[in-house]
């Protein structure tokens, strides 16, 4: 119970510091946006379409654009309005279909469709989609033009026939078969880094920053005063750790739920994913408590926290997939499993990529429990030494 009392005060103090609101709610939101954009499956780019003509070919192009799954077409009133919306980021891009679109095509002239985007890099994939829709329409138009030139039908009649038969023509697909031994980096696509790696990196890094809470409690003399009451050192440390564990867990859940709801990021079985996050948060808070017991000032702990947080994440496969380690240096793959990150990722990989069950990830979870127990035990030992000798 005393540990809960200490944890409650720890959380109250954390919430009371307004700068922490940034780390609990705003920073994870930013991470949600980054993760969602990078790994989300249902994201639809907003494409403004200004059709300055009600003619059939112009409307046909609009229909083709609307048919693209990854694009949400927004009909805009004017080119100026669309330009402003793109500049403000309300639209990812806009397409302006000119008033003489049908007339120009009918008379065999070249017609330009204007594509507006903030930068070519941001809109490259969207532009490809728009070009693809225009190309599909152009194929039909060329077929009609060919029939007209051969005297088989008028352009309008040929266009009508070509459009009607468009759906019956099968696509040509290309199968790519890899031969020979691939160079390691070619495998990156197969084992693409995932939202899970970023989650583990973030949770561990922010947990380590929580070591400052214990350091502050020590520096204020409150830790010593607590053990002058009928409270054991282990209660003090577990209480402080629980506070940080709760913060890490809330942050992690916030990110997982946010990216899932907004961007449809796949975290696998939600209960198993939560269990992995819960245990990893426990490991992170344990590591934070160990640092808080070892270091005596915020600067030392802060510097070491960033170094360890990023270093262990890199070694543990959060920056380059573990499978790449296995390909380029099997020894490094083994070394990576010194870190809790590697075991957390193994567990996430199992439930996301292989629909793993609790039994499948039980070993990984046990190893994470082991890390937490070792970190907390070392932290309690160290804090006892620091406070009583």
């Amino acid at each position: 119970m005393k540990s809960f009392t200490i944890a409650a005060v720890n959380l109250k103090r954390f919430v009371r510091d307004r700068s922490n609101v940034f780390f609990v709610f705003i920073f994870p939101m930013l991470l949600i946006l980054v993760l969602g954009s990078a790994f989300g499956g249902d994201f639809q780019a907003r494409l403004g379409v200004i059709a300055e003509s009600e003619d059939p070919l112009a409307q046909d192009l609009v229909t083709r654009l609307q048919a693209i799954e990854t694009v949400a077409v927004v009909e805009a009133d004017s080119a100026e309005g669309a330009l402003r919306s793109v500049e403000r980021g309300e639209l990812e891009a806009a397409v302006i279909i000119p008033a003489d679109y049908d007339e120009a095509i009918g008379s065999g002239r070249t017609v330009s469709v204007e594509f507006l985007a903030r930068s070519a890099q941001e809109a490259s994939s969207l532009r490809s989609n728009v070009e693809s829709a225009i190309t599909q329409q152009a194929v039909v138009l060329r077929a009609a033009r060919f029939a007209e030139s051969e005297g088989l039908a008028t352009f309008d009649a040929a266009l009508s026939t070509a459009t009607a038969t468009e759906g019956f023509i099968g696509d040509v697909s290309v199968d790519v078969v890899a031969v020979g031994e691939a160079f390691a980096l070619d495998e990156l696509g197969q084992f693409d880094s995932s939202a899970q790696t970023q989650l583990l990196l973030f949770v561990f890094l922010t947990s380590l920053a929580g070591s400052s809470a214990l350091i502050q409690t020590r520096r204020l003399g409150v830790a010593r005063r607590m053990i002058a009451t009928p409270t054991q050192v282990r209660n003090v440390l577990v209480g402080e750790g629980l506070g940080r564990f709760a913060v890490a867990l809330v942050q992690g859940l916030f990110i997982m739920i946010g990216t899932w709801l907004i961007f449809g990021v796949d975290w696998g079985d939600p209960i198993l994913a939560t269990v992995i996050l819960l245990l990893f948060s426990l490991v992170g808070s344990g590591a934070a408590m160990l640092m808080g017991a070892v270091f005596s000032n915020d600067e030392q702990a802060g510097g070491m926290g960033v170094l360890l947080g990023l270093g262990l994440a890199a070694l543990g496969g959060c920056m380059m997939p573990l499978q790449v380690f296995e390909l380029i240096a099997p020894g490094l793959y083994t070394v990576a499993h010194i870190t809790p990150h590697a075991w957390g990722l193994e567990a996430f990989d199992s439930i996301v990529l292989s629909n793993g069950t609790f039994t499948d990830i039980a070993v990984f979870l046990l190893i994470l429990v082991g890390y937490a127990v070792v970190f907390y035990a070392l932290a309690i030992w160290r804090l006892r030494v620091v406070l009583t000798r």
Partner: protein
Amino acid sequence: MTQRTLECSGLRKVFDDLVAVDDVGFHIDAGETYGLLGPNGAGKTTSISMISGLLMRDGGTVTVGGREMTTTSTDAKALLGLVPQDIAVYPDLTARENLTFFGRLYDMDGKTLKARADEVLEIIGLSDRADDRTEDFSGGMKRRLNIGIGLLHKPALLILDEPTVGVDPQSRNAILESVEHLSREGMAVLYTTHYMEEAERLCDRVGIIDHGQIKAEGTRRELVQMVGQHDRVRLETTGSVDAAVAALDALDGVAKSDGGDGSIELLVIEAGEHLTEILSVVTESGVAVSGVDIDEPNLESVFLHLTGRALRD
């Protein structure tokens, strides 16, 4: 035999090559205030850290209310209230929140805790600032809250480690009055200080500590007598004093007397007890006394005598 509230003996603590505390021992009974008087670095804080179970000791025993005190013994710690030298409160919590937090660590429950917190806030004069964050408090107010936390669970033994360091005179007086009040209520108090006047005012018995050892222990009077110090009495007189000085030399309790121009100076054991007799001898010798000045030896002079240096050296 009545159980002592605190009994410690043979306390020893060594940091690397430095013997910080060596063979320190004393006892305190209920309602008694015991002072550990010594300069900075004498071993006071190290001693009370071992007594309160904060610091592992290299030797000796400590019992509080008959229960052995170690760094892990919760039953002995439940009887003890500690007021550390440095203010140990959360600055971003209010006074009431700090009291409530520590109260819970002393296993106090909701209603009892709330009532006791209100009571303590009244005692330390912070009722009107109870819901203000302590970071906005003055140094004196923080000190009072620091003491309040130690009193919260009505401990059998209250340990105050130099509680008036850096405190304004008004808060200092309030703190001393609180300690006197607690002692009257039956609480055993262990008070460390390097202010001689605080030890003289508050303490029933004093242990003089220097270089980690208790050099002497007893009531102020016992300590003064132990080192052979006498009260100095000066009489303002008119008339010839030779006969009076001769008569005074023969009196019990008068160690030495000197007559001068218009005055007589005496070294007396317990001046208060012998003053009437002294005045009567002088008057009978035909000398008129127009003024009396008694200078009792204090703990400062005892410390100087025992250690060869002043308390604040």
